[in-house]
């Protein structure tokens, strides 16, 4: 059962994300029926799932929420800012409900009850006018709708009792959807008319979920001396059938009264039509859901990992087969091997594309963030998203969320100016933030640009000097200065705001992005805006690396962290006392990997120093040989090596041997601390 619950939570989280996205779109176009339908459907699925897995609280909560959208769907309510705000809070609350198992928490209860109250108020507003409306709506919604025919011929002397028949009709009409036909054909000529007599009579078609007694109740005081006929026509909402209403109205105009018999005949026809329509709709809905299930399926990531393993194994085997075919020269073998080669390559490409998911979900979250922030900061902002269908490795997308959120917060908080300032500077009052994702070679570029104030390099420079981050006499290019914002301990916010000044700076953004082997760059033009560009690898499972060998074992160093490679003679390495080597005129600290890995010193006269970037410093790693560039399929080392994180994984070379992939940051950190 637990695994089912887990699955439910997973699925529910996805549904809630989807809901949020749809809601944001709905906010933009509140009258889009397709969107309303979509919101309703997602809620409905969520409700159904939670009921099935025993999440009763979520079930009842979504049920009420769903009711609102059902009413909107049926046109009894309009999408309003109020409703949307409540729905957004509800979405947050639903997320909390999924995370938090402790429903007894008093804070949680307050939020829950508060929201429930608000939702109920929307569903059942207290003022009378909307009550009638909602009564009407509940008729339409309820399954037990019936249509009645009512003929009301008041006694001529009805006015003498002080009764106004129109009031009775009003009351009758409040029971549900209605169509009233007034007949004046008994009205005498103007000369014969007696003003205090009632000549008019009415025929009413009423669709209601109340029973016939409720209708009788309306006429309770006049029933005895008036002519009253009440007849159930069908257990359907006949008034929803336009043809029927039209036919009856036409008859009512030409004839003095339509008469029960005629109406009944029309009613049977209409009821048949409605039933047919319903059946059609039902099958349509079923077809729609069927289509949906076929479009995508759910696969556990374990299976995908397995598939990836098999595919890489196949690729390795295929390489060996090709080599073998070349050597043996058996007639007819070459074309077969070539075919296998082609198929393997296609298979590999498809397998890799499976683990990529569109960045859409992530971007949806930011829509929400911008919406909330623009309310909080009172800044109107157009948030434009481009390239949401760009695909990235799932792990990268997960790790991208925080840094991107921070960048967007910064743009909202510091970048975009107040409307007044913007107008004074000749910009449109509404700010613009552009989030864009696109492919560039084997990487994905994500750009956040705003048309805000931009970053003034002079202020940055002055600030960096005052903080002692750079020497005051150093000449720096604009790019160098802008890059200073990525230094730890640098924050330009004038005051600590709720939005961005949380002690987390751009340095953390940079670190997080380099953790997923990405790069960040900033460009800015004072008064025009700032663009932050993130460059990411397509997937975490393939890396560009440098294959090196140490004591005849192969190792891979990620190319992204490598700065330069030097050949240095052995003497200058082994005679160095303070582990510093002079390369290109600068002294660089180095570590001999042979020594650090507790291996014997090598006999070679020349050693290779691979200089890597480590936290803004350059550090040399001494290896025996540099073999060359290598595209490595990264594989985990397994649970037993979990605490041993100086290697981020291993890769299998063409000849089947295993090469370890170094995490240079962690290796250097470990060596530095062990000194």
């Amino acid at each position, binding site marked *: 059962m637990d695994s089912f619950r887990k699955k439910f939570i997973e699925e529910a989280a996805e549904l809630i994300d989807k809901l949020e996205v749809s809601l944001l779109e709905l906010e933009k176009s509140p009258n889009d029926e397709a969107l309303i339908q979509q919101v309703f459907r997602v809620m409905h699925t969520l409700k159904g799932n939670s009921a099935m897995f025993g999440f009763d609280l979520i079930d009842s909560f979504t049920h009420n929420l769903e009711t609102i959208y059902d009413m909107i769907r049926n046109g009894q309510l309009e999408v309003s800012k109020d409703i949307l705000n409540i729905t957004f809070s509800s979405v947050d609350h639903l997320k909390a409900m999924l995370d938090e198992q402790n429903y007894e928490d008093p804070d949680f209860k307050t939020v829950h009850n508060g929201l429930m109250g608000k939702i109920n108020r929307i569903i059942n507003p207290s003022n009378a006018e909307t009550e009638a409306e909602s009564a009407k709506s509940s008729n339409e919604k309820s399954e037990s709708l019936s249509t009645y025919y009512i003929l009301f011929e008041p006694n001529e002397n009805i006015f003498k009792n002080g009764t106004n028949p129109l009031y009775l009709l009003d009351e009758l009409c409040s029971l549900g959807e209605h169509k009233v036909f007034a007949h004046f054909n008994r009205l005498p000529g103007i000369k014969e008319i007696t003003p205090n007599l009632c000549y008019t009579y009415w025929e009413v078609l009423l669709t209601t979920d109340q029973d016939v007694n409720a209708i009788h109740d309306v006429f309770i005081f006049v029933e005895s001396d008036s002519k009253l006929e009440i007849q159930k026509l069908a257990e359907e909402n006949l008034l929803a059938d336009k043809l029927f209403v039209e036919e009856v109205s036409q008859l009512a105009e030409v004839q003095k009264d339509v008469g029960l018999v005629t109406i009944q005949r029309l009613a049977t026809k209409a009821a048949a039509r409605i039933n047919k329509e319903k059946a059609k709709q039902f099958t349509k809905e079923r077809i729609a859901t069927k289509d949906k299930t076929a479009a995508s399926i759910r696969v556990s990531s374990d299976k995908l990992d397995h598939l990836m393993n098999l595919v890489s194994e196949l690729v390795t085997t295929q390489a060996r087969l090709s080599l073998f075919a070349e050597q043996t020269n058996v007639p007819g073998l070459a074309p077969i091997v070539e075919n296998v080669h082609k198929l393997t390559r296609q298979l590999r490409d498809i397998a890799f594309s499976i683990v990529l998911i569109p960045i859409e979900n992530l971007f949806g979250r930011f829509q929400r963030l911008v919406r909330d922030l623009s309310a909080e900061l009172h800044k109107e902002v157009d948030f434009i998203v481009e390239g949401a269908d760009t695909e990235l490795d799932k792990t990268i997308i997960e790790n991208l969320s925080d840094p991107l959120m921070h960048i967007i917060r910064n743009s909202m908080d510091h970048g975009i100016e107040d409307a007044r300032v913007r107008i004074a500077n000749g910009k449109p009052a509404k700010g613009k933030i552009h989030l864009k994702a696109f492919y560039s070679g084997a990487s994905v570029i994500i750009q956040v640009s705003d048309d805000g104030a931009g970053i003034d390099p002079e202020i940055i420079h002055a600030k960096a000097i005052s903080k002692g981050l750079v020497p005051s006499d150093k000449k720096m290019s604009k790019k160098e200065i802008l890059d200073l914002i990525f230094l730890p301990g640098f924050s330009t916010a004038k005051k600590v705001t709720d939005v961005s000044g949380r002690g987390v700076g751009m340095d953390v953004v940079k670190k997080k992005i380099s953790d997923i082997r990405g790069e960040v760059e900033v460009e800015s033009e004072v008064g025009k805006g700032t663009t932050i560009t993130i460059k990411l690898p397509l997937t975490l499972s393939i890396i560009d690396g440098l294959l090196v060998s140490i004591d005849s074992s192969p190792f891979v160093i990620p190319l992204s962290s490598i700065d330069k490679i030097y050949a240095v003679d052995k003497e200058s390495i082994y005679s160095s006392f303070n582990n510093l080597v002079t390369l290109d005129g600068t002294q660089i600290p180095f570590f001999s990997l042979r020594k650090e890995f507790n*291996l014997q010193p090598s006999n070679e006269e020349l050693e290779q120093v691979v200089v890597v970037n480590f936290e803004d410093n350059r550090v040399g790693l001494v290896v025996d040989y540099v073999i060359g560039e290598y595209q490595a399929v990264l594989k985990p080392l*397994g649970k*037993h*090596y*979990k605490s041993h994180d*100086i290697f981020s994984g*291993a890769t299998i070379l063409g000849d089947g041997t*295993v090469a370890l992939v170094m995490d240079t940051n962690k290796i250097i950190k470990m060596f530095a601390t062990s000194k």
Partner: protein
Amino acid sequence: MDTENKNQIKSYLTFKLGNEEFAAHVSKVLNILEMTPITKVPKAPDYLKGVINLRGAVLPVIDTRIKFGMPETEYTNNTCIIVLDIDVDGESVHVGAIVDSVQAVLEIDNSQIMPLPTLGSRYKSEFIIGMAKVEERFIIILNMDAIFSVDEITSIVDSNQSVAEGTDAQQ
């Protein structure tokens, strides 16, 4: 294979470390490999011998002797890697265990498995399922999940006792 089926199978793979004969339930054993070159992982604990390429996946290999607190020996032609499917907190983890030699697959009935004598036992009880007497030999049946899921080096030998080493006599 579900648990019920597993319990019904009475087959055990036996292997030797020195003169001592051990057994592991066959449901835990995925594969037996000949000794292959192992890629060492620098800076890792001694008993973690390194990793090998198991049909495209990277498999960590553990020297069972070191793990069991026995002295290391040279690898011989008989040295094998048993690929085990270990259950670590409900997750299936594959690991290779280097043993001196693999013996046979034996049918051992549950009734043949005796609990370890509490007194004078050399082994810690949490790692041992029991002992079986087959053809006048005593075979120690191991709890592979418990032995290989622990991160630190675990001596399955009770610290008060010591394992009688007969490896040299065998060779």
